[in-house]
């Protein structure tokens, strides 16, 4: 086989086309993860120097100390609340955009997307201005005479973190839900009405199931992103931020200078997120009918005796 024929071989062409993306993923995703895993199996000695000896000590310590499982649970709790709030905000808005609004549809959609162009830090700081002791919200409450003293618990608590993260990640939840709703043919809603289902049951049996892939994708975005977020907790979380797992990882890599332990926490987190993603994937399949296994393209025809042996 000469060179030009080799170049025309479809397998060779597929391989060549795949080289760049696969290479990219290997260098910037796979290699760092492997390094992270390797790092998590090393340890630091008394002088805080990383010793390259294989050990499971980090994982033993991780699961042996209540602090780490606690931070994981605490973070998951916050991420869950952010996800629920984002879903509650995003679904009705997406529904409105997809089915009800006609004239200002694009304008409204842009209004949802535009915050994404504003720097993350600006949005997080924005909440500091709103929620702070001398902030806009407290000023309003005091001026209206609802409270005598500015409320201190608004800022520097997990509630501030939840509010800010919800604000930041709601567009990520909205977009896949909107896309799923938008792709539902209008005639399906009409067919459901035609078959005696009112608005509520049409939503329940037709619209909701068909939008579930979008809902799951949106929820996964919100959960995974807010679970891994460490900037909003650092800016707004006060003492509570010490309990967020991402901030623990940051301090382990920074102040504590215990990279192997930090890597171990990261690996556990990564595993949890991957588990979650596969769960979401499985759920999505549960909710749509996959059809029976079809081997032959044609429906089974009546067969004569002795026929049909392959």
């Amino acid at each position, binding site marked *: 086989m000469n060179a030009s024929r080799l170049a025309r071989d479809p397998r060779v062409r597929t391989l060549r086309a795949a080289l760049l993306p696969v290479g990219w993923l290997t260098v910037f995703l796979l290699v760092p993860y492997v390094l992270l895993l390797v790092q998590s199996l090393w340890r630091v000695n008394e002088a805080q120097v990383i010793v390259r000896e294989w050990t499971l000590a980090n994982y033993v310590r991780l699961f042996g100390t209540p602090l780490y499982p606690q931070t994981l649970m605490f973070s998951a709790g916050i991420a869950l609340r952010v996800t629920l709030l984002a879903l509650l905000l995003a679904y009705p808005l997406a529904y409105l955009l997809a089915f009800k609004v006609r004239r200002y549809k694009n304008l409204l959609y842009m209004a949802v997307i535009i915050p994404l162009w504003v720097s993350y830090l600006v949005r997080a700081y924005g909440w500091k201005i709103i929620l702070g002791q001398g902030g806009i919200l407290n000023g309003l409450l005091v001026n209206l005479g609802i409270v005598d003293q500015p409320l201190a618990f608004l800022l520097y608590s997990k509630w501030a973190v939840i509010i800010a993260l919800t604000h930041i990640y709601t567009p990520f939840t909205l977009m896949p839900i909107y896309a799923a709703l938008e792709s539902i*043919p209008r*005639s*399906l809603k*009409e*067919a*459901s*009405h*035609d*078959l*005696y*289902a*009112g608005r509520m*049951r049409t939503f329940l*049996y*037709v619209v909701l*199931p*068909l939008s579930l892939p979008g809902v799951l994708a949106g929820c996964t975005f919100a959960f995974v992103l807010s679970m891994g977020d460490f900037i909003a907790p650092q800016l707004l979380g006060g003492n509570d931020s010490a309990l967020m797992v991402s901030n623990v990882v940051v301090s382990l890599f920074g102040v504590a200078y215990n990279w192997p332990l930090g890597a171990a926490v990261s690996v556990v987190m990564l595993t949890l997120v991957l588990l979650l993603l596969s769960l979401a994937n499985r759920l999505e399949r549960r*909710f*749509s*009918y*996959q*059809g*029976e296994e*079809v081997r032959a393209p044609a*429906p*089974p025809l009546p067969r004569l005796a002795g026929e049909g042996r392959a």
Partner: protein
Amino acid sequence: MDDVSLAVAPAEFITILGASGSGKTTTLRLIAGFEQPTTGEVWMEGRPIQHLPPYRRELNTVFQNYALFPHMSVWDNVAYGLKMRRVPKPELVKRVGDALGLVHLDQLARRAPRQLSGGQQQRVALARALVNQPKLLLLDEPLGALDLKLRKEMQLELKQLQSHVGITFLYVTHDQEEALTMSDRIALMRAGRIEQVGTPQEIYDRPASRYVADFIGETNLLSGRLQDLTGQDATVDVEGHLLRAPAPPGLRIGQEVWLSVRPEVLSVLSDGQIPPGHNVIEATADEAIYAGSLIKLRLRLASGTPLVLHAAPTALTVTLGQAVRVGWPRERGVCLVA
């Protein structure tokens, strides 16, 4: 859309026929309740229903693109209407089975809609509507997406199915041949109005306007002036030929009219022969097109007006370029206003 008045009899197969944009789908959507009339009423079995939402109307629709629920099996699609009406389970199972049997899909009940061919999806849509035993079934160009051969098969099947189940079918199509084959009656729509209602034969043989004559089948339209009128018998001057035909009421002598004659009504007359009660016109044979079961002969009047004649291949002996005399029985033509 305005001035659409249409009464449908029980167990009738009635077709709304019209070009795209003539308002036939809108009419259907008004009846189904997906759209609201600004004025006017929709009645069913002696009661007005236009204020009812679609899910309270005792009718079902077969949608143009089938609109099957993609996340449900064929069986669940068909069972949907019965479930929504809370039909008890044993009855539901039996009726779904029967409906699937009716359209020969019992074997495919567990498939997802996207695993089916276009024709099979069409049947599911039909079963999903028929299972509810509606009083009226609306069909919006249900065969539009199928290829020609399958469409012909389904036309016959649909017609048989309709007479079997005895449900009123209100069928919308732009295909005049489909309308002629399947319908008990046809309502022809044009620009939001009903142009004519009648049996396929009435519409074909006695079109009420030039538009209807032109839309249904093939026809020769000859422009002329009304010369004389005795009762229902009109004499029309077409380029110097005096031709007679039955006329609609309300014509005035001297009026511009059209004479519509179907190509298969025309025949080439042999020399000297004039059958009694025939119109005769002189023309030149231009071209003969062989079309299997018949020959299409293109002719030209002295003024250049084209004329088409259909004849059995064996019955035709014409030399092209030759002047011939063409005749037809007077009562087979129609005199039409504009």
